[in-house]
């Protein structure tokens, strides 16, 4: 592999490689790889999240979008990205809470974390409804 090649790697490999400071081939002490921002966190997605967070199809970007964002933020300090992700998540969480108990296409836009959240909300809503339905008249 030549120097300057751009390849897709799992983020945990990028994590390890970006922390090794020694390049065994050239012997220089700089970082072995430079990590670019993941595709899912590219500026167009972030702009969409800024304008209309609940409408963005996060599952299409990455099924583990928020997990990826958290991993990336752990590796690199990026205050702007952190703010965008945190506000977007708050907006999306309140949107999911609105959708709890409903069914529809919106579920396909959720990433894994949001799906889990949606399922939890639905489960407790169901438990509540079953309880309230114990009166019969």
């Amino acid at each position, binding site marked *: 592999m030549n120097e300057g090649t751009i390849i897709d790697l799992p983020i945990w490999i990028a994590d390890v490689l970006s922390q090794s400071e020694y390049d065994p081939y050239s012997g220089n002490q700089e970082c072995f790889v430079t990590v670019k921002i993941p595709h899912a966190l590219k500026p167009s997605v972030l702009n969409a999240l800024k304008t209309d967070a609940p409408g963005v199809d996060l599952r299409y970007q990455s099924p583990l979008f928020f997990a990826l964002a958290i991993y990336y933020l752990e590796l690199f*300090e990026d205050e702007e990205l952190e703010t965008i992700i945190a506000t977007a998540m708050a907006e999306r969480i*309140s949107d999911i*809470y609105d959708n*709890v108990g409903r069914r529809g296409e919106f579920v396909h836009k959720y990433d894994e974390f949001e799906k889990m959240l949606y399922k939890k909300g639905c489960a407790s809503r169901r438990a509540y409804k079953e309880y309230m339905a114990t009166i019969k*008249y």
Partner: protein
Amino acid sequence: MSVPAEQLETFLPSELHFMAENETIEILPRRVGNPIKLAGTDLPLMHPLRKNRVPIWMAIALKKQQRCQFVPPDWMEESNLRRILAFEHANPTAFSNVDFHWLEIAQIVLTTAPDDLTSPPQVIRNLVRDIREVREQKSRQGMKEVNENMLQMDRLGALEINEMRPFVVEGMEEMIKIRKAGKKEEPIIYSESDNPEDDEDDEPTYGHDDESSLAVPSSQLDSSLRYGDRVDTSERRRELSQWDDNVPQQGGPEW
């Protein structure tokens, strides 16, 4: 013991129902009953047609034996429920002040003593459901304010809180993760010279048995200060900085 996952993070409505049964309610006994001493509560002497306040579980048992009549709580009167509903409609950001276990108590009274209500039970049930729906709508609005630090909704009932608990807790935990990932703190490193005691014996010492492991000798700790006390932080900070300045001297100033 294995507990289903959903029961680890929240209560089942039936569990809250059980807890609500320990609240008290007024009853009109139909027969004389001797006072009973119980652990926690004492049951009073009961006279026919004299109001008595007893735990709900007791009232349910007596009602099932046809020995009493429920006196539904004030807020379960039709007029009061209408007033609560009007308040809920009129205030888009505040919840009306209802009993903490209002939904469960309404459920209990409606199931065990529908004949003791002053209005038809269907009317009461529909009013309770309407109030609950308005409050639910408001709690959805309140969720828009969610952030990783807090979510405040006053005067929600036990069942209402219980319903949103797994969702909110999980959501806020994920938001905290983002904030934590963004903030990299310097790891706290304790130098070995701080605690010379540890070098001598290999056994680690736990707790604060000896004073040397405390950062501040206990004689200097303000023993009059208890958890929950209000402390004027500005004065405290001044004192602390004073203490910092005087560290080289032997023995700091009196606290």
